[in-house]
């Protein structure tokens, strides 16, 4: 496993996402209110590109006919079959234990730290005053 | 409605006006009466599977009737059997005392509307044979209707062509509640065959189309079903007019049977009004809808509407035309109209004769 510097945090403002390829793997990075999360961009069902799905909340119900809306912006729906995944964990809503897309730990670090290493920065130009998104792959 | 004390009806047949009764219901005494004309394959089929229709009950009506067999309690033949099953008793109770000069037989439970298309055709054919053998050949006042398996047009047309030209058959019979509205093209081959045979098409209320009696679902009570036939028949007649069968078959004549008639003027007005606005949708129509109605459609009278004051009915008939109504009793059913009481109005002799007899003779082409 190695740590990869993906982009400045300012590239992915809160509520947005971006797709990267790291070690040949497509990884989608999401910014939820300043926290960053990464998941393999492949739906475990049939391989749909999750990053192209819609970010939604979760409609829940404790009783038929009652609707509660929770976790606004924290769920990604596969653009093909609409399966719902928790951006924070990669778990599917319907069957969280068995159906999940791989989650990758994401961190942020200051430019100064990053320049110290040991990170794989690939093509990202680094600046001391910036913060960077780091993923372990 | 029936509160007024009426004159005692005339008792002497000879002194009474001869009438046509355009809706008489003959019945089989027992199911096996049809056996002579039903191939063994279908007798066995009926014994095993019955005659399934598009309703849940194996036999009998969807809505329980008001009286057994929906018939007058005084109409059981003395020799036994159900009401309407004895020619002798029908003659004695109805044809002779009411001076019926022309009686049109409309058999119900005749194989029409059975789900199995070939069974429907086979039973209809047997019923037609039975009408001749049991009724019209025994009493020349009676004329028969060709019952046809109308949900299968090619079979129905074949049955019409089989009987075309037979003196005892004066119309083709449909039931009103069909699988699709009556103007639909699936039925056109039947109208074509009827027009070709110069036979009017009678549409008798009832039937087994599988759709609820109202457009808003199944009501709860028999009274709602009975009242509902008027709405159902308006829908059927609108369909025939708007889909253009009278343009396609200019010789076609249609008789609405046992659906009442007082709804006809308002329906005509509504059709005309809507068509004036919407006629781009139906460019195949060349005249006002009411004009087709006026020219191609007749109504039997029973169950007569009974407004108060009674004279309002004169307006209705005036709007429809005195040549459009064909008197009918619905014998032996419980909602029978007695000719002595059915039209207690001051009208001209011509009107009376047309209403009770001449209109029927004209439409059926049956002379004096």
């Amino acid at each position, binding site marked *: 496993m190695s740590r990869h510097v993906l982009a400045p945090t300012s590239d992915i403002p809160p509520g947005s996402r971006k797709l990267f390829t790291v070690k040949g793997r497509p990884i989608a990075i999401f910014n939820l209110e300043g926290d960053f999360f990464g998941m393999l961009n492949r739906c475990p*069902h049939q391989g749909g590109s999750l990053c192209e799905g819609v970010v*939604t909340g*979760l*409609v*829940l*119900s*404790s*009783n*038929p*006919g*009652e*609707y509660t809306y929770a976790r606004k912006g924290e769920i990604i729906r596969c653009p093909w*079959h*609409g*399966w*719902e995944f928790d951006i924070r964990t990669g778990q*599917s*809503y*319907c*069957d969280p234990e068995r159906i999940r897309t791989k989650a990758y730990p994401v961190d942020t670090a200051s430019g100064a730290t990053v320049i110290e290493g040991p990170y794989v920065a690939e093509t990202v130009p680094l600046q001391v005053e910036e913060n960077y998104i780091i993923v372990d792959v | 409605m029936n509160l007024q004390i009426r004159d005692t009806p005339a008792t002497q047949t000879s002194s009474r006006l001869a009438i046509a009764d355009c809706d008489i219901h003959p019945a089989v005494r027992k199911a096996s009466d049809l056996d002579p004309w039903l191939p063994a394959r279908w007798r066995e089929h009926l*014994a*095993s*599977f*019955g005659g*399934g*229709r*598009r*309703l*849940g*009950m*194996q*036999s*009998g009506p*969807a*809505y*329980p*009737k*008001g*009286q*057994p*067999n929906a018939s007058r309690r005084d109409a059981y033949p003395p020799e036994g059997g159900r009401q309407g099953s004895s020619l002798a008793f029908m003659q004695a109770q109805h044809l002779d005392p009411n001076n019926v000069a022309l009686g049109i037989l409309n058999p119900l439970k005749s194989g029409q509307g059975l*789900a*199995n*298309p070939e069974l429907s055709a086979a039973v209809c054919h047997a019923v037609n044979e039975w009408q001749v053998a049991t009724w019209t050949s025994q009493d020349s006042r009676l004329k028969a209707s060709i019952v046809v398996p109308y949900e299968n047009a090619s079979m129905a047309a074949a049955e019409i062509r089989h009987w075309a030209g037979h003196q005892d058959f004066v119309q083709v019979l449909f039931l009103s509640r069909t*699988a699709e509205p009556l103007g639909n093209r699936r039925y056109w081959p039947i109208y074509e065959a009827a027009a070709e045979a110069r036979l009017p098409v009678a549409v008798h209320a009832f039937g087994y189309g*599988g759709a*609820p009696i109202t457009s808003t*679902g*199944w*009501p*709860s*009570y028999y009274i709602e079903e009975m009242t509902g036939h008027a709405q159902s028949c308006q829908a059927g007649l609108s369909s025939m007019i708007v889909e253009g069968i009278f343009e396609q078959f200019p010789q076609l004549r249609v008789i609405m049977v046992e659906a009442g008639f007082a709804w006809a003027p308002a329906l005509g007005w509504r059709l005309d009004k809507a068509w004036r606005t919407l006629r781009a949708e139906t460019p195949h129509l060349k005249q006002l809808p009411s004009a087709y109605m006026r020219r191609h459609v007749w109504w039997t009278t029973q169950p007569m509407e009974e407004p108060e004051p009674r004279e309002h009915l004169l307006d209705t008939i005036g709007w429809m035309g005195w040549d459009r109504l064909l008197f009918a009793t619905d014998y032996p059913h419980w909602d029978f109209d007695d000719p002595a009481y059915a039209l207690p109005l001051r009208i001209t002799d011509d009107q009376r004769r047309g209403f009770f007899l001449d209109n029927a003779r004209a439409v059926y082409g049956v002379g004096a």
Partner: protein
Amino acid sequence: MNIPGAIDCDIHPSIPGLDALLPYMPDTWREIIQIRGIDGLNSISYPARSPLTARPDWSPEKGKPAATLAQIQRECLDPFGSAIAICNCLYGVQLLFSEDMAAAFARAVNGWMAAELLDRDPRLRASIVVPIQNVELAVDEIERCAQDPRFVQVLLLASGDHPLGKRMYWPIYAAAARHKLPIGIHAGSNYHNPPTAVGWPSYYTEDYVAQAQAFQSQLTSLFCEGVFNRYPDLKVVLLESGWTWLPAHLWRLTKYWRGLRMEIPWADRSPADVVRSNVRLSLQPTDAPPDAASLQRIIEHLQSDELLLFSTDYPHWQFDGMAAIPAGLSPALVRKITVDNPRATYARLMELVR
């Protein structure tokens, strides 16, 4: 077969005729029925003489099959050795349009059942026929009959005016749950809708085959509407459904649940889980190929040995002789189907069986 303690979960006594019900009706209805000349309420779901309606050796010369206690004992209870048999009366009460008339007929059918059969053979139990035309009246009838522990289930038909999951029907489920009564859904229709989703067929055979599709639709509805979320202990028993359609149906329903869960957010368990906890199916007919190997595979597809409940479907002609249990089932599974599963399903059965 003759398995000690077997519980036959689906037999069909016939109401001998309309006259048999009159003693169980109040004067008003007795007179109305006579004055109006009402026929017996016989549904086209089982034409009187169709080969399926009664096995040849269970078809009397005169009268109806399974219409007397003696017939039922001689042809069904004694030879199969069942400890208990549950009577599901398929009289056409559900076909009626008048809610009040339907309620009167339902009361009469249940009254007849208790007096003519349950009182006279301790092996018999029955399902409550309800006037589903009016949910309040149906609940009243459940409350009335539930006082008698020999009524062990509420009986509904596979096709009616609306899908059974609709909330309008939930008071029925509340009453059933209150009294530990499973809901038995039996093949049949009130024919207020066409018997298939594509219209009216020409033949009876199509109608009967289509019953399996009706059960599939009802299972979809019960799951999607969340009936078991609200009534987690409620059991639904699909009676005379053919049952081999179940695995394939669950595959499809589960697939769509994964994609459309947000439409029915209360659906928090997979359809297969819900079926395993809440739905049971009677054994006859078993719509399977004749080879035991295929049947084994189908059973494996069920992924549970708790779903099937033994039934003869007497007097319907589903098998010959004593072959009520299809060949090839393991003895352990036969024991589950015939004894353990019915006992686990019908809570009220155990109150009397001990």
